[in-house]
């Protein structure tokens, strides 16, 4: 683990990403203390430009709500949805991929057809349908992003498990009389964790993008302030109030960028090629 950390730390750009992610997390956690009032609260006259009033440093929106407060509270939502939906995708994708890769044959065939099937449907369109059907809410958005997100996980896990499955330690475990479940969970999965972690980190970024797209189309939870919502709501006034779509857009861009940098840093630090340097 220390080896991993020192390898990760060596990549400056990944460290910058990590620091930015840490900042976003800090803002998300601090949001209720920074802006104890609801971000929906109309606090000033509408369309106040940024840097004009110290109390609303980033200006106000169409209803006179504080943009800075919205950004801070939006960070919470974006991160929450990004992380939870990724967990949902992992919860679906990892078992399917592991079972397909481990058992192979007809089980693999069936599961992979099933996965392909989900991949053939344009995923964004599917997400729209799911959210619309279950009515926009935090739960339905998370579920929809998770549901469209799992096929790549399943494919990755299947591939990795398949590769591990061919290694002799798995045969040794079978000969030792271990059950399939034990072999998958105790022997194989720990060896597949690195690529899953890398993929998961990138999926968090993708999920944040997807959530913002859904909110932009008006398919977000109407009770939670999110960055995508802010841009969607500002779309029609983009010309008289550029800051309303600009700041949340930049917030998404920076967060997603930073998570990607961390993901890449993880990928390199966890790369078997670089971790094999002790022999």
């Amino acid at each position, binding site marked *: 683990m220390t080896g991993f950390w020192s390898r990760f730390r060596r990549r400056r750009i990944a460290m910058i990403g990590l620091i930015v992610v840490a900042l976003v997390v800090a803002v998300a956690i601090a949001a209720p203390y920074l802006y104890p009032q609801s971000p929906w609260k109309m606090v000033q006259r509408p369309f106040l430009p940024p840097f004009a009033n110290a109390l609303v440093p980033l200006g106000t929106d169409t209803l006179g709500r504080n943009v800075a407060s919205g950004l801070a509270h939006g960070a919470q939502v974006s991160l929450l949805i990004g992380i939870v939906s990724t967990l949902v995708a992992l919860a679906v994708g990892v078992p399917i991929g592991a079972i397909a890769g481990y058992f192979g044959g007809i089980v693999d065939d069936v599961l992979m057809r099933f996965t392909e099937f989900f991949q053939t449907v344009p995923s964004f369109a599917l997400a729209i349908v799911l959210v619309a059907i279950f009515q926009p809410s935090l739960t339905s958005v998370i579920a929809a992003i998770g549901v469209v997100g799992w096929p790549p996980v399943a494919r990755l896990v299947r591939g990795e498990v398949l590769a591990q499955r061919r*290694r*002799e330690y798995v045969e*040794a475990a079978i*000969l*030792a*009389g*271990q059950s399939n479940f034990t072999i998958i969970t105790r022997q194989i999965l720990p*060896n597949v964790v690195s690529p899953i972690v890398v993929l998961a980190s990138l999926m968090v970024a993708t999920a944040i993008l997807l959530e913002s797209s859904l909110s932009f189309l008006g398919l977000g939870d109407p009770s939670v302030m999110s960055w995508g919502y802010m841009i969607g709501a500002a779309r029609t006034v983009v010309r008289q109030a550029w800051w309303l779509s600009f700041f949340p857009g930049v917030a998404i861009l920076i967060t997603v960028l930073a998570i990607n940098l961390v993901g890449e840093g993880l990928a390199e630090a966890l790369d078997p090629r670089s971790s094999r340097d*002790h*022999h």
Partner: protein
Amino acid sequence: MSEEAILSVENLAVELPAGADRLFAVEGVSFEIRPGETLAIVGESGSGKSMSANAVMGLLPPGTRVAQGIAKLDGVDLFHLDEAGMRAIRGRRIGMIFQEPMTALDPLMRVGEQIAEVFEAHGLLTPAERRARALALLTEVGIPEPERAIHAYPFQLSGGQRQRVMIAMALALDPVLLIADEPTTALDVTTQAQILKLIKELQRKHGTAVMFITHDFGVVADIADRVVVMRQGKVVETGTAAAVLGDPQHDYTKALIAAIPTGHPEVAPPATPRAREIVLEVAGLTKTYTTSGGFMRPARVVHAVKSVSFDLARGETLGVVGESGSGKSSLGRCLVRLIEPEAGSIKIEGAETMGQSIGQMRQWRRRMQMVFQDPYGSLNPRSRVGRIVAEGPIAAGVPVKTAIAKAADLLAMVGLDASAVDRFPHEFSGGQRQRIGIARALALDPRIIIADEAVSALDVSIQAQVLRLLADLKARLDLALIFITHDLRVAATICDKVAVMQRGEIVEMGPVGQVFGDPQHDYTRRLIAAIPGRSESGPLGRVRAAGA
């Protein structure tokens, strides 16, 4: 020493990137090669033999660099040439072939074009002439149907054919020096013999000097004029092949030569032959693979194991030999039912195991355990060694603590320190890992051990140690051993009986002396003939004859 050396390397040092386990990959290495001569550079893995060759070619891996030394080719120091100068040398003055003929050819390009590229790289000939030369070269290296082969993609050729293409490419411009980096290691023994023969022939015909890098003293004996022995980046001994093999001066060389399997049984048969107590009886075992064609396309059937029958008694060692694809590994996996055979009978201690449920099978598997080939892949990198060894007993219901304590004992038995229990596999060397694998196989107190190429991935000195351990354990624990290997010398060293497999079938089976001494089947004879270093006229043969 009358002739002028075409390549002379002096005091070469190659620096490794920071953080590696040593400062220099190669240090203070000097050697020279004269026209028409074959210089073998021998050493175990990590000895720096390939690094030296790559340094000469200017193809060192990224991060490493020549720190010191000169390499004079025709009086020009290669280490001081610029990139363009070096490019003019590569392919034209020095040709090179590599270990893996599969990956060394561009998979997307027809082999004819790949050969023609050599001429193109040096701006020679017209495209039509290049094609003609490529065809001539393919004919010269003995590829069947060269007119067709020229249009083939690498994947359509066999390993041996691919290596021939590589040789054709390397020799296309009649270089003065050919560097061959373990060119036969990935090949079957019969193919290896053919390739070695081809290199020799071409060398004679073109007068090329060959720098031959290998770990196999048998190959050295067959091909080398002079030998450089390397160890951990340094040259330990240099001399003519006859001198080095026949009268090694350095302890390391001596040890290496001593470790070569002699091809004679080392374990004396029990003084008093006792009644054979059959532990395993196999009859008509069959496994075929059908590549599904789908409708409209005929399915392809491969016989991995075809009506194999044999029996095995307590204390006996059965060697299963054959080239890759002969089905010997499939046989081993069928026996422990990692692969489900489709027909036949497997009786362990008289009880039929075929057709039994998975639960029942678990019981039988404890009687028959396996030692695997890959010292890296056969141990879970994320498990501690103690746990790896104890897994079988734990799965069988033994309390974890007890099982781990027993694992420590087993590890001691295979010659490892008790502290090994808490360490991870990557902290061990290849030989040590194989010992861990053996300890694991023993953990369930089996009657039968199947060793599948258990020493193939090991350096020769380590190989000898592991073989000795296996033989020792077998005798001590009164085990039956099935030893699967492609190396006939190894088989001859350790086995009582040997079965020769070809295309899934046992073509010949009998006591080792009988099979190897008086082979009946044509295939067996071919295999034996192809063993490197076997020829009685070679230096090793002479040594062996004298010593044995």
